[in-house]
């Protein structure tokens, strides 16, 4: 029973960590709270719907391509012209992009919720170490593990990763050293697109449906997780997402039946307590010593 809960906690936590990373990456580099991130997730999910009659990996690849292309296009067309604008202007622009994408999808290819039947193999389950796990849970864990591990490697071991980390900490100084600001920002949007696509793929597999509005909930989870962990700190953001997902499952498993309906009230009360104690987030980055 406890093992089962732990597996469920890690599964949802890892999924939430994907959501928070995409949000925190762009916030760290651009100071952009990207409210259009939910729509990028939706675009990825839509690709799964569009290619639902093809083998599943075709839909998955299409989801990544769609999400990355749209993510990079939003940067090129909407955010780059506002590069030097203040954070409030950027945030309002991201609202506009979010609403525009949502409206265009609703008016054209996604006027109502569309079903995407789950791949039969994903619904199968098996007993591992005495606990029942579905293939979907395993795929989710592997996908999140590969993406988060891959991102950690990219950030730690590659020149692009070092430039991304430097830009996230101090974009002006990074640029003054010769870091190509536009390339770094575009890369960040592309990486956020990959994370959004993976989130979209997992969401479609769990919910079995796609709609123009489906990005809102994952967006809010991503923002809350990132704020809890520390907005400008990728490790912190991942931790925030992980804890939020794990907390959700833990409350669901342990709350008395009468109180399960109030799960989110308990969860977000805990979030508020965390923020009162550490308003900068759990991992806010170490301060530089001055002497």
């Amino acid at each position: 029973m406890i093992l089962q809960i732990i597996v469920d906690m890690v599964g949802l936590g890892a999924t939430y960590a994907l959501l928070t990373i995409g949000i925190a990456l762009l916030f760290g580099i651009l100071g952009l709270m990207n409210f259009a991130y939910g729509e990028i997730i939706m675009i990825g999910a839509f690709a799964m719907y569009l290619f639902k009659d093809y083998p599943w990996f075709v839909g998955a690849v299409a989801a990544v391509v769609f999400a990355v292309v749209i993510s990079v296009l939003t940067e090129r067309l909407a955010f780059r012209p506002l590069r030097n604008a203040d954070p409030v202007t950027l945030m309002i622009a991201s609202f506009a992009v979010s609403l525009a994408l949502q409206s265009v999808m609703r008016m054209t290819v996604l006027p109502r919720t569309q079903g995407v039947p789950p791949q039969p193999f994903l619904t199968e389950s098996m007993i591992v170490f005495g606990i029942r796990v579905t293939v979907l849970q395993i795929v989710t864990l592997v996908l999140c593990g590969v993406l988060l591990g891959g991102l950690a490697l990219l950030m730690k071991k590659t020149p692009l990763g070092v430039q991304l980390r430097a830009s996230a900490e101090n974009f002006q100084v990074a640029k003054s050293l010769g870091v190509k600001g536009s390339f770094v920002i575009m890369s960040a949007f592309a990486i956020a697109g990959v994370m959004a696509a993976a989130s979209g793929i997992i969401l479609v597999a769990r919910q079995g449906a796609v709609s123009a509005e489906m990005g809102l909930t994952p967006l809010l989870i991503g923002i809350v997780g990132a704020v809890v962990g520390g907005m400008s700190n990728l490790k912190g953001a991942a931790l925030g997402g992980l804890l939020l997902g794990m907390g959700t499952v833990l409350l669901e498993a342990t709350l008395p039946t009468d109180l399960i309906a109030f799960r989110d009230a308990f969860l977000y009360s805990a979030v508020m307590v965390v923020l009162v104690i550490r308003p900068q987030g759990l991992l806010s980055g170490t301060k530089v010593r001055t002497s």
Partner: protein
Amino acid sequence: MLLEINDLFVRYGKSVMALQGASLEVGEGELVSLIGQNGAGKSTLLKSIVGIAPVYSGSITYDGAAVTDKKFSVIKNRIAYVPEDRGVFSSLTVGENLRLGAVSRRDKGNIDGDIERELARFPILEEYWGRGASLLSGGEQQQLAIARALLLRPKLLLLDEPTLGLAPIIVDLIFDVIEQLRDEGVTILLVEQNAVRSIEVSNRSYVMQAPGKILGSGNANELAANDAVVDYLGFSPTGVKGDSE
């Protein structure tokens, strides 16, 4: 002259004029210092060269090209800038910080050799190579910031208050390095509050008074002959060992 600044006005917002008609010249291979009290506009002048502070009027010419031209690239022209707060990335290791200094260089094959040279100049950086930069002291961070700037192989090095807030022994170390760089032929524009040491190591010095006006310039003897400069500094630089001797 490598760098020529003429009648420069820099305005923040609509009313704050940080520089009022500052003029300054730096020749190739020269070490020129800009001294003055807090708020005089010294850092603003450096920022205007690298495009961080908005030029209101006047001109900045580098190697014959207008710095204020949109096409002018500070990096391509190998102007390295060490800001007052050092700009060290605390989330990166010492090694990662250092390598970032060479990020724009195309001669990748020569970078490792240059890093070796800077590690020999600043041995503490080799010792702390894999350590997080946030764990360095202020003096160590300043060494890292200067070493990183030198990895650009700068034609012009801009140093903004490199000894600010440092212990006397570290101040000595930083000035020793500045002298070493001067002797190697690196062109340096040094902004400092430590007037005596700056005049001592520089070929020429400019004295700036708030709001961004040059009171006088020259070597120690020339500055000593300028009453306005002596009044402002509160001492006569006559006894200061400088380029004049």
